[in-house]
């Protein structure tokens, strides 16, 4: 059979961000795929070395527009550890609240993108319509829909009162109803199942070999979640389930992510019910004593790692960012082998790529 090379990207409707795949196909079956990234490489790690610690909060927020808050959380956490700061409990809870709202927003966004890519525009519209509820809440809390600028070193910048917390709870109930409807539709829609079952399969062994993290790993039966395994912020006081599935295909990832949004809703409710009183920030000095720290957080896409080294000045000597997408990108050539070209968008969407994160 004749071989043909199909380029996917850098500009391609299946990719919201530039990434390039060269697929070698036989008929409609893929035999080889070559990945080229770096189209959104902005050199953030170097930029961070030229700014001071406070300015860097805003730089790392712009590593990724979808999971901006977890980036600042993990970064601030690291700097706070270097400074030996004790962050007030109320600030930790508000940070966690935003983390969970962001997870809901990110997962719903992903659901919509996947649905659009497999040609199910209606689910895309509904998922994104429901996502607006979360965006509204986040906007009311912080003033920003996508970039929130909530974290500062030593605490948070935002606060909420009883009235707002009540109005958030009401909307969360509405959101839960919507998500459950969505879940029902997806579980019963045969065409959706036909397009996602058995597509983009990753075994638990592959997940371990490639050090894959987050919902992609959990959908393959690897039970990892930093929120439970190494509680940061306020997660040690919260009660939640870690969702896993066994199948390891796009279908399992869909279920894991949607059930996770519901779990996140419960977390938000717990946080709002038990929000401690107290200060929002502690004063942080501009200069950071020499030292190094590895800070980890569970982004919507999985484990996020920051390594920060200070040389005693007001600028970090090194900020290393390892984002979860980098680990999933490495599995793509494996996932794409022997796949039908029509399933490429489902595979690409299934692992929830965030190229801006991966390229930095």
């Amino acid at each position: 059979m004749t071989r043909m090379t199909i380029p996917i990207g850098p500009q391609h409707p299946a990719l919201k961000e530039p990434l390039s795949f060269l697929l070698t196909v036989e008929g409609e079956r893929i035999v080889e795929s070559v990945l080229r990234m770096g189209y959104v490489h902005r050199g953030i790690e170097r930029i961070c070395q030229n700014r001071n610690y406070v300015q860097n909060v805003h730089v790392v927020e712009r590593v990724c527009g979808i999971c901006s808050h977890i980036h600042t959380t993990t970064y601030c956490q690291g700097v706070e550890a270097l400074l030996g700061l004790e962050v007030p409990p109320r600030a930790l809870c508000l940070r966690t609240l935003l983390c969970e709202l962001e997870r809901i927003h990110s997962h719903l966004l992903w659901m919509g993108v996947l649905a659009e890519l497999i040609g199910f525009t209606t689910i895309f519209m509904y998922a994104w319509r429901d996502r607006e509820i979360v965006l509204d809440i986040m906007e009311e809390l912080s003033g920003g829909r996508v970039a929130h600028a909530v974290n500062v070193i030593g605490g948070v910048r935002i606060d909420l009162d009883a009235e707002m917390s009540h109005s958030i709870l009401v909307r969360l109930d509405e959101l839960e109803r919507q998500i459950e409807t969505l879940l029902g539709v997806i579980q019963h829609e045969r065409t959706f199942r036909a397009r996602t079952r058995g597509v983009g399969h990753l075994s638990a062994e592959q997940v371990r070999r490639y050090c894959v993290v987050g919902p992609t790993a959990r959908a393959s039966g690897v039970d990892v979640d930093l929120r439970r395994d190494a509680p940061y912020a306020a997660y040690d006081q919260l009660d939640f389930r870690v969702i896993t599935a066994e199948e390891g295909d796009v279908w399992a990832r869909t279920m894991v992510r949607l059930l996770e949004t519901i779990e996140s809703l419960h977390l938000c409710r717990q946080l709002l019910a038990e929000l401690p009183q107290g200060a929002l920030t502690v004063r942080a000095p501009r200069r950071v004593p020499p030292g190094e720290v590895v800070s980890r957080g569970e982004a919507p896409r999985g484990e996020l790692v920051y390594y920060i080294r200070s040389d005693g000045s007001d600028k970090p000597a090194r900020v290393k960012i390892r984002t979860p997408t980098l680990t999933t990108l490495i599995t793509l050539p494996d996932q794409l082998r022997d796949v039908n070209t029509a399933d490429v968008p489902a595979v690409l969407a299934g692992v929830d790529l965030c190229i801006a994160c991966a390229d930095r």
Partner: protein
Amino acid sequence: MNVDLILEALRKTFPAETIEVRAMPVNETFVTLPPACIRPAAQVLVEQLNLRHLSAITGQDTGSEIELLYHFWDGRGLTLRASLPREEPHIATLTDLIPGAAFYEREVCEMLGVTFEGHPDPRALLLPDDWDGEAPLRQQPSPTPAAPRHPLPLPTLGEGGG
């Protein structure tokens, strides 16, 4: 993860080497090893202790040497540290033990000019195809100035704006 168990295993594997151990904030242990020991140490971690999750490889230029940090994770963090000379740094690859290390190593390679011996695919990961400057994370006044403003002749205006 039991840190003492790991240290014991490492000391047993490298009886002649000095192994420096430091506890760091946020559940992290830093272990400094000679560069030649990194690969055998990773082998011990992966094969004997089933510690297979490599979170990241950080490379940094401290001014006097290139430091590589291998961040492992299994409920607690374990970081292996090795220092390489600034001139022609090289170290053995881990890709055959931990396939997930492939991208991390490629990134360190292009950002700091470290050669990973035995890496199956040492292409650039993030830098552009036409990159002709220094490795960008090496300490130097400025890593190849970003191309000058207005680097290209602008396309003719006129079709737009109707």
